């Protein structure tokens, strides 16, 4: 396999692994946060506004690690800087 094919296949494999592994943690965390918030709302329906607001903000914080992984894998697949450099060297 030549260099371009190697870089391409490793990039795609790594992008898939990044997204797969990187979404496990946030998924567990978000599920736990949501379950706790639902339990809290069931116990104290009066505080539902505050709990929901805090839940949304914390979900966003938890989610951001998954979003980092997503952005990274998108960069690896669509705008791979290393592949661009190799292609530029090969063309020039």
């Amino acid at each position: 396999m030549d260099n371009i094919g190697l870089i391409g296949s490793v990039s795609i494999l790594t992008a898939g692994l990044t997204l797969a592994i990187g979404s496990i943690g946030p998924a567990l965390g978000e599920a736990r946060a949501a379950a706790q918030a639902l339990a809290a709302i069931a116990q104290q329906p009066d505080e539902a506004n505050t709990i929901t607001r805090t839940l949304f903000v914390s979900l966003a914080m938890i989610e951001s690690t998954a979003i980092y992984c997503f952005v990274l894998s998108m960069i690896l697949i669509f705008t791979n800087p290393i592949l661009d450099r190799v292609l530029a060297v090969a063309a020039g």
Partner: protein
Amino acid sequence: MQLTPDDLIIAEWGGVRLNATIVFTWLVMALLVGIARLITLRLTDTDTPSRWQNLLEVLVSGMADQIAQVSQREPARFLPFIGTLFLFIAMSNILAVVPGFQPPTASVSTTTALALCVLIAVPLYGIAERGLASYLRTYLQPTFLMLPFNIIGEISRTVALAVRLYGNVMSGTVLAALLVSIVPFFFPVLMQLLGLLTGIIQAYIFAVLAMVYIAAAARSHADDPDPNAGEGRNDETETKEQQHG
């Protein structure tokens, strides 16, 4: 397929390129300013305001309410900055369902600019509220050893703000583009609906996080160490709500 509207060149005059991000940012700004100006030209204080004035009143008082709840202080100082952030992001995310519209928040440059605004606004509000020396001293809390970590925290949360908004909006547009090529007709519409929801939530979260950062910087040290203060306030609002009910 493109990951960012920065690459989409709409017009070009002699080296000056006008990309989709700038054009649609201007469009959103013009819409916001134009609509607000049109409505505020005909403000009344009668018992029957026009429906547009009603809309603005609901928006502004709702944002002021949220700011007051999050920051536990007078919202008037923060409303211009936080409200502008929220309205701009919400408007550009909502307009993403319009065909041909590229949301400017799907570009890293826009979200970075917004996050930099927050990065600058935090010390400005902090210094204005509690003075230069007192604000700088917060970087030395709890000991001076924490100084580099406080600075790293400041920078990393700015990066997180920018990448979070960009990633969410960009994932919506990328998913829509992918799904159109796989299941062309019905399913992308559902994803667009979901995109509306996440767009509003992300705008809300950006504004709330900016408010939390500013409120943390602007909190005077006097009301800091008493953990019961917040609870007392909550009890008051609770009894108030019960009286209303």
